[in-house]
C-alpha cells in the first residue's frame, strides 16, 4: 500500500514538472513553443512539380537536392522566418513513373507574388550541341530561307541535342566583356564535374555548334574552335550590361537544375488561423470538463482516478508535441507499452526513460506541427483516451458483483481488460499509420501524427498511471460504502456468466 502511494505521489510530481515545462515554454520565442502549421499561423504553401525527365536517372536525387538548396537560398534572401523547403518523391503511388515535387512553406507571408517570382524566375541554363553537318543541312533547306528569325524557329531549335551539361554544373558566373567587341558577356566557371564534361564535349565536337539556352531560349550558338579544358566559358549575346548583371545574379543564386512548375498555392491569412487556435483551446477545455464530470458521476472513485489520468494524458501529449517525435521512436515506445500491459507495468517506465533519452539527443526528434485538423484529432483523442479506463472499470464492477474483494477485483479488472485494450488500440494504430504514410496533404499527416501519439499516450496512462493511482487510493476495508464508491453506474450489476 505504502509502496503504491509513494509511486503515485512520484507520478503526480513528475506530471506536475512536465506540466510546468509545457506551460513555461509557451512564449513564441521559446525553442519548445508549439510548432503551429501554416493553417494556424498564416502563410503560404506552394507546391511545384519538378520536371526531371531530362535528368539521367542516377542524377535525379542529386538534382533534387541542389534544387532544394537553391530554392532555400532564394527564400532566405526573401527574408522569411523559418521557411520550409522540401522535396518529395512518390513513385509507388503515381501512375506515370516517378513524380518529384518541391514544397515551399512561407510562414507569415500572405502576399506571395514576389516570393513566387523570386523562386520561379531563376533561369534554367542548358548547353546543347548541333553538329556542323546538321547545321549546313539546315542552312541550305528551304525552312531556313523562309524563316526570318532563325533562333526562334522550332525546327532549328529541335536540332540541338542534350549534352547533360546544365546550370547545375556552374559554380560561378561573372560579368565580363568581350575583348574584341567590348560587348558585355556572362563568364562562367564550371564545377569539377562540369569542367570534365565540358572538356569531353568540346574535345569531341570541334567545329560543331554549342547552343546556350536560358529558359529554353537560345542565347548564342558559338562554334567550338578548340577543346576547353580549364572549365571556363562565356555566354555572349545581344545583352545590355544590366541584363548581364541580372543574369549573373540569377545564375549565382542558382540556375535551377531542373525546371519547376507551380501546381498548387495556398495562402492562409492570420485571422483564420487565430480563430482555429482559439476555438481549439476553448473546445479542448470544455470537452475535458464535461468528460471529467461524466466520469466522476458515473464511475465515482475510479472516475476521479481516470480524470487525473486524463489530465496527465493531456500534459504528456502536449509535452511530446513540443519535444517532438520520430516514427521509429514512436513505434519502439508502442512496443514497450504493449509489454507493460502484457508483463509488468515497469516497461511503461522504460518507455518514458527511452523517450526522454531520445529527446535529449539533438536531431533525433522533430516537433509535431499542429494544424487545425491536428487540434481536432487531439480533442477527439481526449474522448477516446478514456476508453481503456472504462473497459477496466466495467470489468472491475463485474468482478465485484461476482463477490471478489475490492483489491482482487481491481487486479482482475486490469488483467482481464488487457486483450480488449490491445486489440482495439491496434486497429487505431493501423488507421493512424496508414494515414501518416499514405496521407496526401500536410493536413492529413498532421492529424495522423497527433492521433497516433494520442492513442499511444492514452494506453500508457491507462495502464501505468491509472493502475498505480487506483491501487494507491484503494479502500483498505471492504464494506458497503467502499464497494459503492469503487463500483459504477446506476443499475445493479447482474450476475451473468459462469461465475
Amino acid at each position, binding site marked *: 500500500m505504502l509502496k503504491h502511494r509513494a509511486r503515485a505521489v512520484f507520478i503526480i510530481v513528475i506530471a506536475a514538472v512536465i506540466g510546468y515545462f509545457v506551460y513555461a515554454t509557451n512564449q513564441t520565442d521559446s525553442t519548445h513553443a508549439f510548432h503551429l502549421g501554416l493553417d494556424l499561423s498564416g502563410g503560404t504553401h506552394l507546391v511545384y512539380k519538378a520536371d526531371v525527365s531530362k535528368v539521367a536517372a542516377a542524377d535525379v536525387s542529386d538534382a533534387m537536392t541542389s534544387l532544394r538548396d537553391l530554392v532555400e537560398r532564394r527564400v532566405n534572401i526573401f527574408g522569411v522566418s523559418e521557411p520550409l523547403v522540401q522535396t518529395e518523391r512518390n513513385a509507388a503511388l503515381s501512375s506515370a513513373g516517378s513524380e518529384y515535387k518541391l514544397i515551399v512553406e512561407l510562414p507569415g507571408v500572405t502576399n506571395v507574388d514576389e516570393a513566387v517570382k523570386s523562386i520561379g524566375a531563376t533561369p534554367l541554363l542548358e548547353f546543347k550541341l548541333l553538329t556542323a553537318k546538321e547545321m549546313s543541312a539546315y542552312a541550305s533547306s528551304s525552312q531556313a530561307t523562309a524563316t526570318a528569325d532563325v533562333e526562334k524557329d522550332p525546327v532549328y531549335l529541335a536540332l540541338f541535342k542534350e549534352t547533360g551539361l546544365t546550370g547545375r554544373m556552374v559554380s560561378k558566373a561573372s560579368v565580363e566583356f568581350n575583348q574584341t567587341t567590348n560587348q558585355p558577356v556572362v563568364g562562367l566557371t564550371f564545377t569539377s564535374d562540369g569542367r570534365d564534361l565540358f572538356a569531353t564535349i568540346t574535345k569531341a565536337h570541334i567545329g560543331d555548334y554549342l547552343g546556350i539556352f536560358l529558359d529554353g531560349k537560345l542565347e548564342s550558338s558559338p562554334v567550338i574552335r578548340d577543346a576547353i579544358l580549364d572549365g571556363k566559358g562565356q555566354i555572349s549575346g545581344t545583352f545590355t550590361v544590366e541584363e548581364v548583371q541580372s543574369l549573373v545574379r540569377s545564375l549565382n543564386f542558382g540556375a535551377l537544375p531542373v525546371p519547376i512548375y507551380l*501546381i498548387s498555392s495556398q495562402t492562409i491569412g492570420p485571422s483564420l488561423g487565430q480563430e482555429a487556435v482559439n476555438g481549439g483551446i476553448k473546445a479542448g477545455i470544455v470537452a475535458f470538463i464535461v468528460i471529467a464530470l*461524466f466520469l466522476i458521476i458515473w464511475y465515482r472513485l475510479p472516475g476521479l482516478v481516470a480524470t487525473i489520468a486524463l489530465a496527465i494524458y493531456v500534459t504528456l501529449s502536449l509535452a511530446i508535441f513540443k519535444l517532438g517525435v520520430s516514427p521509429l521512436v514512436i513505434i519502439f515506445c508502442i512496443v514497450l507499452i504493449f509489454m507493460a500491459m502484457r508483463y509488468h507495468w515497469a516497461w511503461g517506465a522504460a518507455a518514458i526513460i527511452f523517450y526522454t533519452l531520445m529527446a535529449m539527443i539533438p536531431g533525433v526528434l522533430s516537433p509535431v506541427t499542429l494544424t487545425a485538423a491536428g487540434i481536432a484529432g487531439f480533442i477527439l483523442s481526449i474522448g*477516446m483516451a478514456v476508453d481503456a479506463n472504462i473497459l477496466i472499470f466495467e470489468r472491475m464492477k463485474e468482478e465485484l458483483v461476482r463477490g471478489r474483494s475490492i483489491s482482487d477485483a481491481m487486479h482482475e479488472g486490469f488483467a482481464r481488460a488487457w486483450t480488449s485494450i490491445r486489440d482495439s488500440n491496434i486497429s487505431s494504430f493501423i488507421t493512424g499509420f496508414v494515414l501518416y504514410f499514405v496521407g496526401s496533404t500536410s493536413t492529413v499527416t498532421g492529424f495522423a501524427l497527433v492521433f497516433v501519439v494520442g492513442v499511444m499516450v492514452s494506453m500508457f496512462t491507462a495502464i501505468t498511471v491509472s493502475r498505480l493511482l487506483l491501487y494507491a487510493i484503494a479502500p483498505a476495508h471492504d464494506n458497503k460504502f467502499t464497494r459503492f464508491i469503487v463500483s459504477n453506474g446506476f443499475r445493479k450489476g447482474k450476475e451473468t456468466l459462469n461465475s
Partner: protein
Amino acid sequence: MFVIKYRKLFYSISVILMSASLVALFVWGLKPGIDFSGGSLIEISYNEGQRPQISDVISSLESIDPAASVRVSGNNDFIIRMKDVSQVEKAAVMSALSLNGAASTTVKAFDSIGPVLGEEALRKAYISILLVIIGIVLFITFAFRKVSEPVSSWKYGLTAIIALIHDVVIPAGVFSVLGHYAGYEVDTLFVTALLVVLGFSVHDTIVVFDRVRENLKNSSSIKPFGEVVGESISQTFTRSINTSMTTLIALVVLYLLGGSSTEHFTLVLIIGIAVGTYSSIFIGSPLLVTLERWQARKSEKKS
C-alpha cells in the same frame, strides 16, 4: 438479450439507412472539394458594411471564370469557388473581387490547387481506404485465429467488414444529401474522418468479439451460440455506450466551439461514430449469430 432477439428489427433500420444513403450517392454523388478536383477556393473579407452584392462579384469574375460560384460566409465574408488560377491571374481575380478597387478586401485564405495534385490526392485517398480495410481485416482474422467453434475466424473478419461498409456508407450518404442541398464538399479531411470512423468502429466491434471469444473459451456447458453472443453484448454494452459518449462529448464540443476549418470534419466523425457504435452493438455481433444459424441449417440439410 434483446439485441439478439430483435436483431431483424435492427437489421431493417440499418438496411433502410444504407439504402437511402446508397440512393443519395447514386443520384447526387459527392461534391468533390478542390483537394480532389483542382480549382481555387478564396475566402475574402470585406470592410464592415462594404460587402458587395453576390451578383456584382459574379459578373465581375465572369471574364476570368464564368462558372465561379460565390457564397456568403459570416457577416462580411464571401467564399468563392472557381477554376484553378495561375499566379498571374491571381492579381486579376483580386481586383475583380474588390470590384476594381471600389471595396477594400482582406484575403483570409486563397487556395489554388492544380488538377495533377487533385488526382494524386484522390488516388492516395483510395489507397489509404483500401490499406486500412485490408490491415484491419487481416488483423481481426489473425487476432481471432484460434476461435473456430462454432464460427470460423474469417467470419469474424467478414462480419466486421459488413459493419465497416455500413459505417462508411451512411456518413457518405449524409454528405451526399448535404452536398446537394447545402453545398457541402468532400475533401481529404472527409476521407481522413471516414478512416478514423473505420478505426473506431472496429475498435468497438473488437471489444464485443473479444468478449465472445473469452466467453466461448470459458463456457463449460454447451450453451447456444446466440446466448453466448447475447451475454457478451450485454457485458460490453455499458462500456460501448460510455466510450462513444465521451468521444461524442468531445466531438460535439469541438463542433460547436472549434471554428469553421474543422466543422465538416467533426460532423463526419460525429455521424460516423454514432453509426459505428450502433453497428458494433446491433449489427456486428448479431450477424455472427445469423451466420451461425445459416451454417447450422446447411449442415442439418446435409445430414
